[in-house]
């Protein structure tokens, strides 16, 4: 556990921590990290921020930064608590050269929307966050990259359809959504209903109260309902308990489909054998066989600068999500640099980079991430970027991809998102952007 890292120079860290203003170094792009390495969600936090930092390190060591611009960062522990996240935001926001914020916490992200919009710095909520922030016309600085909750819902239903042999086979099927009793858990309730109406499957949505360490009654209800599939929209300890309780009531585990927060090793390992055969959605495959991971192992961990204490976690779901997040951030900077020059960019300039973050499969392959994730296509008004999803199955020791890259039904979701975004705009007196308003402010 005692890991000596000398990622930052002592002087820099000390000076910033004490609050002294520093002159801008040569060219640097700074990532303030609202990480969480303690508390109930520490496992996810260490994996994600570990992967993110590993990738930033790779760019620094291998390439000497992005076109010579060094990447720097500083961590502020949040324990996943909103006010700690806000404190870290206030503390680090004046650091020179802030590129983007990546909190990996719905609560913190929400609390930052007003602040980052005012400060004109992008806020990246990969795979989570506010669904309607997909609408870049209303949320110019928020990027729920790859997958928002609605797309996830659609992706899961599409996957079930492929397993049944087509969307027309969904008719008459019974799907139960077991969701965490929190705003996060409830967010997709209307979308499942919408899809149920559209495809004609019957739907039951059952809540598990936080933290979810007891689910006997819910699973007995599921058994009584004779569900064909259970979608697990879980969180933390709720996931292994769901799998264990499913076993207890005799529900077949391979008919439980986990969502994007129920798809990590941490969710299945505690369930032991009960998790064998469990399937979950993901935007990024796990495993360390991809070239970019191999390079990280060789270059970063080889130099003793790896961020994970436990090397077995390299290539785990959260670690890979962190790496993909690193790729997306770095590529956004690279794209923005093509416009503004190879120097430290402002947050608003990086935002423009994100709004042109278009990585086709060929570019993804060139980045050494073929198979790790599919592609992304962010535009000024679509801040999600049409990420594809895939499904992985737990074999008792590791995740194995069991599907192609599946596309959610974006077209039918977009109107709902726009409606919600419009309501937000009205409530907050926000002028809806047009493509003419995307220029970087000076």
């Amino acid at each position, binding site marked *: *556990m005692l890991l000596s890292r000398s990622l930052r120079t002592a002087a820099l860290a000390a000076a910033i921590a004490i609050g002294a203003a520093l002159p801008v170094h040569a060219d640097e792009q700074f990532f303030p990290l609202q990480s969480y*390495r*303690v*508390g*109930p969600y*520490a*496992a996810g936090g*260490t994996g994600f921020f570990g992967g993110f930092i590993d990738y930033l390190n790779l760019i620094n060591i291998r390439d000497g930064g992005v076109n010579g611009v060094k990447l720097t960062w500083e961590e502020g522990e949040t324990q996943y608590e909103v006010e700690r996240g806000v404190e870290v935001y206030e503390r680090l926001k004046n650091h020179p050269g802030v590129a983007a914020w990546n909190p990996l916490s719905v609560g913190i992200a929400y609390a930052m929307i007003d602040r980052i919009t005012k400060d004109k710095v992008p806020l990246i909520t990969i795979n989570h966050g506010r669904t309607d922030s997909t609408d870049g016309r209303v949320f110019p600085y928020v990027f729920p990259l790859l997958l928002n909750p609605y797309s996830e819902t659609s992706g899961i239903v599409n996957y079930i359809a492929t397993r049944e042999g087509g969307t027309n086979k969904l008719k008459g099927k019974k799907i139960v959504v077991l969701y965490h*009793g929190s705003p996060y858990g409830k967010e997709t309730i209307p979308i499942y209903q919408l899809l149920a109406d559209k495809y004609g499957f019957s739907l039951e949505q*059952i*809540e*598990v*109260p*936080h*933290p979810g*360490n*007891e689910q*006997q*009654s*819910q699973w*007995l*209800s599921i*058994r*009584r309902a004779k569900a064909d599939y259970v979608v697990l929209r879980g969180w*933390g*300890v709720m996931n*292994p*308990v769901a799998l*264990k309780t499913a*076993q*207890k*009531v*005799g529900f077949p585990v391979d008919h439980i489909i986990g969502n994007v927060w129920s798809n990590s*090793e*941490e969710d299945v*390992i*505690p*369930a*032991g*054998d*009960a998790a064998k055969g469990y399937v979950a959605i993901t935007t990024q495959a796990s495993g360390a066989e991809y070239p970019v991971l191999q390079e990280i192992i060789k270059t970063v961990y080889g130099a003793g600068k790896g961020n994970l*204490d*436990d090397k077995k976690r390299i290539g785990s779901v959260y670690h890979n999500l962190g790496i993909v997040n690193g790729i997306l951030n770095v590529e956004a900077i690279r794209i923005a640099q093509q416009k503004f020059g190879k120097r430290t960019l402002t947050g608003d300039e990086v935002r423009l980079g994100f709004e042109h973050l278009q990585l086709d499969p060929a570019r993804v392959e060139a980045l050494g991430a073929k198979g790790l994730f599919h592609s992304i296509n962010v535009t000024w008004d679509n801040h999600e970027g049409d990420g594809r999803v895939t499904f992985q199955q737990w074999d008792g020791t590791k995740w194995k991809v069991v599907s192609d890259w599946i596309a959610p039904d974006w077209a039918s979701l977009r109107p709902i998102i726009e409606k919600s975004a419009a309501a937000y705009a009205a409530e907050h007196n926000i002028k809806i952007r047009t493509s003419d308003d995307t220029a970087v402010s000076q």
Partner: protein
Amino acid sequence: MFDYQFFIEVLVGGLLSGVMYSLVAIGFVLIYKTSGVLNFAQGAMLLFAALTFVSLVERGVPFWLGAGVTLVIMVALGVTVERVVLRPLVNQSPMTLFMATLGLSYVIEGAAQLLWGTQVHGLDLGINDIPFEVGGVLISQFDLFAAVIAGALVTAFALFFRYTRTGLAFRAVADDQFAALAVGLRLSRVWAAVWTAAGIVALVAGLLWGARLGVQFSLSLVVLKALPVLVLGGFDSVAGAIVGGLLIGAIEKLAEVYVGPLFGGGIEVWAAYVVALAFLLLRPSGLFGQKLVERV
């Protein structure tokens, strides 16, 4: 048409869950009975025990040796707590002591994660949780096993208190601290013994809950399940903890299944409290709690 089979299934499931709550509640009762402290650190102790055990086993220590070593550590922890926290705070108000145990839970949680990391671990006790059927009702093997363990633990404690010197001293202290002091019982020794006992309960509960939830930070949250049990059963009654646990378990599940849908579900969390409260209005000191005649 009322589905009796389903009702029984829910009821049995609830009772078996209740056993798990009782297991946690007993740890509270032991300490409250002797020192009047509501030990909120019970959850942290549970986490600490389970995490220590699982980390030892993952490092190749055999199961029983791991359990033994953890036990020794828990005993050491109990004695240390008595020494460092309780003894200097003797004669302080119950609230101050409660706060101290909150502080203690920070220390223990921090230490547990500092020592063993924040990883999530699986814990396999070697009990296959394939359910079996009795008259169309599914019963979980693991839950039955947990119930047997809990029963054994309670029996062991009962025998201990009845037939050993320390046990008798424990009961004397529980009845009347001052009287016990007057006849020359060493409170500190009894307290150390009690915290040790609570440590053992934490280990057993930690292993059983850990096998269910995985060994991770959230393990310390199971104390919240024990609190309504304590209110219902009385803070100072082991029997109350058991009966209270069974009742809360059963009521909670039945409420969720039959009343929950009226409100859209998820009522388990507070339903337990509401039931406990309603009951308390009738009997302010719980099922088996001591009724105090007000002396003026």
